[in-house]
């Protein structure tokens, strides 16, 4: 099944880095996933998230408030069913 990854952040530099690292990690680990960036603060808040940048995979919040490296993100992806 295709993994649905959403990168949440209102467009600051850290959010951009997280999005780039995530795309890179998906590519490197070869998982079947879509990466979507969410910039609208209303939508972010509606999800119950205040700390950005944040990463949501298949509706579950996996990290918030910091930007991991591509390698760490690959571990996160690999650890998922």
């Amino acid at each position, binding site marked *: 099944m295709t993994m649905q990854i959403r990168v949440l*952040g*209102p*467009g*600051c*530099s*850290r*959010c951009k880095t997280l999005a780039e690292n995530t795309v890179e990690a998906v590519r490197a680990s070869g998982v079947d996933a879509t990466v979507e960036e969410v910039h609208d*603060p*209303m939508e*972010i*808040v*509606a*999800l*119950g*998230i*205040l*700390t*950005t*940048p944040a990463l949501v995979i298949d509706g*579950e*919040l*996996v*990290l*918030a*408030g*910091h*930007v*991991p490296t591509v390698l*760490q993100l690959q*571990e*996160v992806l690999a*650890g*998922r069913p």
Partner: protein
Amino acid sequence: MSVKASERRAPPDVSLAAGLLGAGVLWWVLYRINGPFWDWIVYRLAGLAPDGRLGETIHFFVFDTTKILLLLSGIIFVVTVLRSFMSLERTRALLGGKREGLANVAAACLGVATPFCSCSAVPAFMGFVAAGVPLGVTLSFLIASPLVNEIALGMLFTLFGWRIALLYVTAGLTIAVVAGFVLGRMHVERWVEPFVFETKVSAAVSSGVKLTWRERTELGREEAATIVRKVLPYLLIGIALGAVIHGWVPTSFFETYAGPGNPFAVPVAVLVGIPLYSNAAGVLPLVEVLHAKGLGMGTLLAFMMAVVALSLPEMILLRRVLKPKLIAAFVGVVGAGIVFVGYLFNAVLG
């Protein structure tokens, strides 16, 4: 990072503790030998005279750069690890449904303790207001967060001692509490973009994310590296300016034009500070030098607070949720508070 909380009951991490202890000792040794080391390089090896201007300026630059970098990375590491126990979501839960007054005090204190980057300002503001945290209380939080900067606090403490550090915290918290309370009393809800109140919130979802000590340490290390890299240009400019002033500008120059006796020193310092956008860490080397040159501590703290708390980029971000009138009121109330603190400190500390 994605491991479930139930799998988390790991035994105490001995190698991590040993690593931390080793890093701590190394840090302390470096901090201690910084002075003697540069004395030896600059005065012995390069043969510059310790009382000559050139030698003094160069020594100040290399010594201060090393000292500030050590302090900065150490303090950011400790602060990030401590803060990883707090989150905006937890803070909001603590503040939700509270009445104004005491809640402003709680919000200001939580503003200092909660990890928060300016890019989270808009979602945090909306999330707080939509969850029923009163507007004034939310503003207290938003003001305290940049104003009382824990990195600045740590550095003030090491550079100037606990009295100035304590005064800084007290003043910053007071401004945040009073400004939030005043703005709350002014019923500024009409100056908030209406869609903020229409936002629906679901319960915070981050409760599932729990960190191990190793991850907290890793966070601290990453954060220290990121911030040091980010502020390094400001820092070097600040220290270079400081070194030049230290070596070449006579003390009487600043005492005459900007000493505690000049009533315009504080407002001018605040006005100069608003358009300057820098991290508190980038300003502190300059503050240290100017203080040694006879500028009032109140003037310098006002300058630093204006640089840190009233930044143009954050105003532009907040414009998405606040109408210009509220932004103007925000800048006015916080600016007035900072000017007041400047005068107070100049009067108290001389």
